[in-house]
């Protein structure tokens, strides 16, 4: 792996399934972040490239590339694929207007299903629906879902909420930003909160499959933790709507890769 760093440009892969944005649009921002973080870590100029992929399949493909050594992912992605990809968290993102942790909220139609036992035949729709492990065992850990509950990924939360209102057997799992905005919807009164998760990490930076030697990983981790005070760091963070990073604080039951 050390050879990789001597001979090739390592890549930090940003992957955010379900959220809007095309790779080309995000590229200047992820480039800026990679440059600032690498400089702060004392890595040589140009030694860390960045790539963004908004799709689950595309992100997984990029993460499988041997040049991909680091990744920036939502916590849901980590729960779903962390063990498979041997992801080792280095730092936890502090997201502007959200924080280092967030609660996920399950909403349904007022007067509809009220508890886990009544969800037989339902579909849970969420931006994190690509990560059923996360939905079942992290976000809805307190609920034992019936086996026939389906989990569906969507980037169109408003459409999903309309499906709830129309009487479909659908519930929507909202992230913190979405649940905070719920009262702004004209039909908010027709929805009800069924349950809420414990605080969970929002996003993580992780090493992929030990592809970064330990000393370099440690230097990068230290750089992330102090990035907001580093030259160009605040701008790079701000462009990604980040305030900084803290040490990973994973829930005790998060599977170890």
């Amino acid at each position: 792996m050390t050879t990789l760093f001597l001979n090739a440009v390592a890549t930090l892969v940003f992957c955010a399934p379900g959220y809007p944005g095309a790779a080309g649009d995000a590229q200047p921002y992820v480039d800026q972040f990679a440059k600032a973080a690498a400089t702060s870590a004392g890595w040589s100029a140009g030694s860390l490239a960045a790539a963004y992929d908004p799709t689950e399949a595309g992100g997984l493909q990029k993460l499988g590339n041997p040049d991909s050594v680091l990744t920036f992912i939502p916590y849901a992605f980590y729960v779903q694929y962390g063990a498979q990809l041997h992801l080792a968290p280095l730092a936890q993102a502090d997201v502007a207007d959200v924080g280092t942790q967030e609660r996920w909220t399950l909403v349904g139609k007022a007067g509809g299903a009220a508890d886990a036992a009544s969800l037989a035949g339902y579909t849970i729709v969420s931006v994190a629906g690509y990560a059923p492990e996360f939905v079942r065992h992290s976000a809805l850990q307190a609920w034992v879902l019936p086996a026939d509950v389906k989990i569906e990924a969507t980037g169109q939360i408003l459409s999903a909420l309309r499906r709830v209102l129309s009487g479909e057997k659908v519930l929507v799992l909202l992230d913190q930003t979405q649940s905070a905005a719920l009262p702004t919807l004209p039909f908010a009164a027709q929805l009800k909160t069924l349950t809420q998760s414990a605080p969970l990490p929002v996003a993580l930076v992780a090493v992929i499959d030990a592809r970064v030697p330990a000393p370099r990983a440690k230097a990068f981790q230290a750089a992330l933790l102090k990035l907001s005070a580093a030259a160009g760091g605040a701008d790079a963070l701000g462009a990604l709507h980040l305030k900084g990073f803290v040490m990973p604080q994973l829930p005790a039951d998060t599977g170890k890769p």
Partner: protein
Amino acid sequence: MKLRATGWMSTGAIMLLLGACAAAPKSKPKNLASASVEDLAAAIAADSERSDGGVDAKTREQLAADADGDAQACLQLAPKAAACLYYHAVALGLQARAHPLRANELLKTMLESLTAAQAADPDYDKAGPDRVKALVLVRAPGWPLGPGDVDAGLAAARRAVQLQPQHPPNQLALAEALSKTGDSNGAREAYQHARELAQVLPASADRDDWLKQADQGLGLQR
């Protein structure tokens, strides 16, 4: 992600290909000092076309500023004219591309301007207000990160097609909206219809572009 999505995905990613939504002008008028509504609209459309042509960030910013100035002049001249309201919306789209951190706010104003243009003359630019509105709603990040709403976008695209069914861009907008709402069969039919409509038109750069978009859409759907 919210860094994921609230921030960079909702701003950087919101830089839409809005210029392509409006009809391209043939040339930019040289003297705008005593410009008419038509001159100012053509000037904004020319800026939009240039901005689509892969210019650098500084030039894009300048084009957006020029378009904004022309849009304001147009609105002063004829505040209720569909042309001024429509091209004001196009100018706002250029600003959203040039200033991604303000994109959400600009796109919301853009949608309001398109609604006003639609009320003034729904047929303007061959149902342009509904067509552009459809594309903004379909392409922009959705609630709560941005003004995107694929259901409303599909409704706007259907209105555009109802008003001007023979105009290929309206069929292309409908195809895109159907695709985003998961109706791949409907999308394929609309792309095919757009292709057939474009094929019988006289040769032009617009026709070539519409055919290309239809072919790309059909390829994606296959």
